[in-house]
């Protein structure tokens, strides 16, 4: 891989972050290559590793910044200018206080035991710290850890899960009743719609049949009385045209309107589903 390939790869991988951030990052690494000198291009690429890793790190750091606003279970304390800002629960301050004498918490110390949920400004997964295993510095697949801790069901506190179960049990009978009602109403509407279409078809067929019959009778009377013929034939024609209109209308309803309505409803539901999913992701 050469510098161009590397940079365009990186650009592609960063396509889903805000433009300003992406531009900054790309500028940084461009400058980096330039400062290293063209003769060092290869060794720079080797030491930078893969564009994928870089993109992951950048996104992880970006995500890490969102979290302090949403205190969730297993969140962290931030050391800033001499103040502890404990955020959320899960990391007990006792743990932190117990670890050292003074009221400070180092993210590393707190990391022990809280695997995928110590995330924060530092965007680092802590699992590599507490084991005491000797590994070289790795800034980690924190992206993955962040994904998990940000959006995992498993990280809900126990009390929340129990609460949800209780609510579900209480609400269930009423919900079943309401749901049945809604389903029934929908079924009724659907039945009415199709009944209408059927009716229209029947009316159309009936009218046309009448028209044919009247025409036949009319012609039978033709010899006897032209006037009568004219009358009956006229009525027959009217019926016929009415029948044709009815058939056309029915055809249109069945053929075009019905699918269009279904599509419209489908789109509406899709829209609702997307909104719900967005809210879901935001809070979980």
């Amino acid at each position, binding site marked *: 891989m050469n510098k161009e390939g590397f940079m365009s790869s990186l650009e592609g991988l960063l396509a889903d972050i805000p433009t300003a951030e992406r531009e900054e990052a790309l500028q940084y690494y461009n400058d980096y290559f330039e*400062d290293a000198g063209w003769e060092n291009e290869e060794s720079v690429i080797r030491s930078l590793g893969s564009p994928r890793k870089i993109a992951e790190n950048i996104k992880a750091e970006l995500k890490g910044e969102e979290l302090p606003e949403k205190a969730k279970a297993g969140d962290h304390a931030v050391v800033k200018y*001499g103040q502890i800002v404990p955020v959320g629960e899960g990391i007990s301050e006792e743990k932190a206080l117990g670890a050292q004498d003074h009221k400070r918490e180092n*993210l590393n110390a707190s*990391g022990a035991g809280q695997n995928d949920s110590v995330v924060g400004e530092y965007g680092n997964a802590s699992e590599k710290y507490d084991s005491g295993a000797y590994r070289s510095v790795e800034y980690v697949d924190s992206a993955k850890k962040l994904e998990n801790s940000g959006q995992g069901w498993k990280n809900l506190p126990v009390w929340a899960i129990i609460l949800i179960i209780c609510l579900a049990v209480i609400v269930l009978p009423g919900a079943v009743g309401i749901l049945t009602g809604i389903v029934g109403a929908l079924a009724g509407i659907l039945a009415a719609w199709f009944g209408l279409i059927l009716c229209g078809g029947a009316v159309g067929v009936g009218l046309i049949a009448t028209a044919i019959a009247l025409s036949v009778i009319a012609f039978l009377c033709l010899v006897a009385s032209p006037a009568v013929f004219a009358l009956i034939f006229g009525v027959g024609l009217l019926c016929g045209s009415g029948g044709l209109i009815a058939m056309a209308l029915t055809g249109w309803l069945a053929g075009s309107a019905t699918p269009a309505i279904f599509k419209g409803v489908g789109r509406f539901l899709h829209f609702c589903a997307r909104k719900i999913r967005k809210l879901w992701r935001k809070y979980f």
Partner: protein
Amino acid sequence: MVFNTGAALLDAIVLAVVSREPEGTYGYKITQEVRQVIDLSESTLYPVLRRLQKDECLEVYDMECSGRNRRYYKVTSQGWAQLKLYESEWRQYADKITSLFEGGSSTT
């Protein structure tokens, strides 16, 4: 290098390296100097710089240099305060661990 470098320590190291140049320094140079101290993956440094910048410990400015713009990072006053904090934290931490190691072999 046997021990892991956590996020806070990394911030501290980078901040300290940048602080050695009161007028500021640039990405590539920062990386080289940090790597003299710890064995750091080069893909790690940019997010750290970004974070320090967003925390207002570092500020950036561009300077024209041989026909191109180069972005310099410089420690802010908040950055100096944070660095002092890191320094004292580190001293206490290191002292405790040192005394733990030494305490084991002495009869005090």
